[in-house]
């Protein structure tokens, strides 16, 4: 039995790695292995979590604190949660684990060519298949984290998020053993987005699967995802890989990095940039190529978040941040395109087509 790793690069993960690195990290690995450029990063494995909980005798204390709790006694739940989270967040990480995390962080910074590269620290839970478990510590995300100390601190914050009062109550109610839970954490380079947005590998307007539609704005993707701006819109033909349509909109705001705060802030876009094309054609086509690969990999249309990173060399600065199956049109497949009943032969098609004719107005 090989020793399970404490940390591993995203590219070493795939969809079968969920027990070790959780769903989020596994899917990032899956994308990288499908040939997609994803901001580089690594996973702190569930093995590392178990080691951390076991090493300092934390597991015993946690078990004790949870003994005999009633899932409806919210006061007691809050108290237990505060106590356990305090324990986790103040417990030093064992030297070898700390060394692993720090060494990988150093290498990541080197890859990115940045001293103490800013990263996102994200929980990546293994229980994604549990309906209703989505609040159990999976949502914890800390952005613009820099330096080893800060990374370690936020990794512990992710770990501790497994023990919110709500998560504890849920496990009691469902009869899950508290010691069964585990969590992986992803450490990923923050895409310092020059431009960003979303991409669908179909036309969300009409469901045309031969199209790719991309929305983009300057700065981080928040402005596009939240709908705060009318983004630039590109329609790319998936088969010929040509941009069929560019709609450049007036973009009034954008999100950029607040260096002091390590967070993004909303700014007004200067007048002269408002009508500028936010993503160059070359990058639009690169995105479309990636979209096509991702769709082929998963076998269904995708809803994708992306960014063009200004920290990265021009030749490889287009990144995919996230990809999910597109749901709206994929559910509509049942009520197919309007045809008139089943047709047996080409003749049937030709006849019904003649009958329909071409609409002129």
């Amino acid at each position, binding site marked *: 039995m090989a020793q399970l790793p404490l940390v591993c690069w995203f590219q070493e993960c795939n969809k079968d790695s969920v027990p070790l690195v959780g769903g989020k990290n596994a899917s990032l690995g899956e994308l990288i292995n499908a040939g997609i450029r994803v901001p580089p990063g690594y996973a702190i494995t569930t093995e590392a979590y178990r080691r951390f909980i076991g090493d300092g005798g934390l597991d015993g204390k946690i078990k004790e604190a949870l003994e005999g709790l009633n899932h409806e006694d919210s006061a007691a739940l809050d108290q237990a949660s505060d106590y356990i989270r305090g324990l986790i967040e103040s417990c030093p990480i064992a030297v070898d684990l700390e060394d692993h995390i720090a060494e990988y962080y150093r290498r990541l910074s080197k890859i990115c060519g940045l001293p103490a590269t800013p990263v996102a620290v994200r929980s990546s839970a293994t229980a994604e298949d549990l309906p209703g478990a989505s609040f159990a510590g999976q949502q914890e995300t800390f952005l613009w984290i820099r330096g080893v100390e800060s990374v370690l601190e936020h990794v512990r914050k992710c770990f501790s998020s497994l023990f919110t009062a709500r998560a504890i109550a849920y496990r009691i109610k469902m009869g899950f053993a508290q010691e069964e839970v585990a969590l992986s954490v992803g450490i990923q380079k923050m895409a310092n987005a020059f431009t960003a947005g979303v991409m669908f590998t179909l036309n969300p307007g009409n469901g045309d699967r031969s199209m790719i539609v991309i929305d983009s704005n300057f700065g981080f993707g928040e402005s596009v995802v939240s709908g705060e701006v009318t983004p630039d819109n590109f329609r790319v033909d*998936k088969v010929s890989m040509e941009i069929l349509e560019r709609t450049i909109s007036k973009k009034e705001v954008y999100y950029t990095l607040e260096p002091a705060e390590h967070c993004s802030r909303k700014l007004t876009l200067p007048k002269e940039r408002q009508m500028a094309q936010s993503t160059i054609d070359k990058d639009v086509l690169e995105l479309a190529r990636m979209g096509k690969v991702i769709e082929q990999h998963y076998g269904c249309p995708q809803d994708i978040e992306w960014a063009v990173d200004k920290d990265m060399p021009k030749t490889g600065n287009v990144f995919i941040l996230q990809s999910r199956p597109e749901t709206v049109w994929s559910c509509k497949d049942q009520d197919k395109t309007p045809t008139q009943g089943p047709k047996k032969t*080409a003749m049937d098609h*030709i006849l019904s087509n*003649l*009958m329909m004719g071409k609409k002129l107005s």
Partner: protein
Amino acid sequence: MGESKRRFPDPHEVEKIPGTEGWERMFPYQYQFVTDDPEREQYEKGMFWFYDGLHYPEPIYPFDIIWDEAWYLALSQFNTRIFAVPPVYGVDHRIINGYIYISPVPVTDPAEVEARVAHFMERAGYYYENWNKLEDQWIKKLEKVISDLEALEIKPLPELEDISVVMEGLGKSTGYELLHAYDKLIDLGLLCWQYHFEFLNLGYAAYVTFLDFCQKVFPDIPLQRVTQMVSGIDVIMYRPDEELKKLARAAVDLNVDGIVNSGRKFVEIKDELEATSNGKEWLNAFEKARYPWFWTSTGTGWYHHDKSWNDDLDIPLASLCIYIDKVRAGKPIERPMDQVIKERDRITEEYRALLADEETKAGFEQLLGTARTVFPYVENHLFYVEHWFHSVFWNKMREVAAILMDYGFIEEIEDVWYLTRAEIKEALWDVVTAWATGVKPRGPQVWPKEIAWRKGVMDKFREWTPPAAVGTAPEVIQEPFTVVLWGVTNESLNAWAEVDAAGDPESVNQLKGFAGSPGVVEGFARVCRTVAEIGQLKEDEILVAPTTSPSWAPAFQKIQAAVTDVGGVMCHAAIVCREYGLPAVVGTGHGTSIIKTGMKIKVDGGTGKVTILER
């Protein structure tokens, strides 16, 4: 729909051109829009007539209208009376100031439509099922009609009939034979056009159905992608050009390219070539290629002045020289067929993979298969009819004209086109009866005057710009021929109406047409109104033309994009540009009138937009 109805002029209110009063007598009477027959006037107002600029980029001559009449009959009979296309009868024709307008006629009674369905399924079904066999038969019929035409003799009238008329007891004269030959000539023309439409509309119907199927499943699919899926079949339309390429290679191989490509006329190089054995060998190859392949018209073949290569060997010679230059420079001149086919298969596979379910996949396969079956005919008929048959036919008519000229009915051969075919028959009667009787005919006092007046009228017609359409645009068009060839779609009509509304060509900076072939290019425009002007094209210019035909092929070796006034996704320019990987926007309606040579323009073959960047 909340859209405003597009407005087109009332056909009865189109301006009359001063000085042309009485022009109506130059054309068949049923082609006139009328106001003295309330029922017919109402019908004409309610129909949608659009200018058939694809076939008639200029006003039609009184004789040349023969082909319009021929297809008026042929297309309509196949729709209405032979295959019983359920929702549509034929295509009606009118003429305004010498320009042909056409309108598909819908079947309005639902019960009638229903009744036609069973007939259509049986009749058209038979054709689709036996397409290849029937098409082979068609080629034989065409070859027969063409050989009959070539064999037809137009004999001048002798002073005294040959003694053999007596010795063989023939019992008829050359005068009678002349009338008979003329009738036969006209008859062969009409027969050829009967055949022309035997398959064409079924071909278009199958093609349009595949197109619409693709557009239903992929609402944004560019039309050109659909034609790409059925293209790549080696069609006859390209043969003339292929022959030129072969001759260019042969000239280089035989080391006579220096003579061939010396900037002289064919008659001048011919003597020099005769002098050497290599030259002779090349000339033999040239002669072999000429028949039938140089019966390629330099235009669409619809007009008498569309000369064929055989009529003027300097035309193919000029193209040959373009190819010789390329061969010498080591550049490829062959059509990239392998690439076309590979790309076609890749595209087809990608779309197939995106289809959701088995039923859709099955429909796609069936329709793609049918479209690929019909496609060669859709392409090939052009060479047999419009190029080969027409080119020989015009020359036979010139033999008839020579006789009329001899008797002083017309001043020169090319005047004959100003007479209708019925008037020519009457004139020939005048000639032969006067010849038989030994008296002067009446014609010389009648026709030259009339022809001089008609020439003036035609000149005035030429200066006039016909509206893109008149009458009332319908909600739906169901006639397949109309749909494909003129691309009368929502989009193009709106675009045309917009430009018409703008009025001043100076104020128009963008034209919308069909996305004929993908790609975006910026460059300088060169407007070529006829194939004779393609010699002026410079490397990397953008060709702007009314429409193109196989004769224009060499132009595509020089240009980086093409824009045409008329044509849909199946037009020559779109097909050739797709093969050569050049962007093309076709069917802009007004390209040659708005774009001027030297303007910097941007052609986006993916969206069908042409933008004027610098005037």
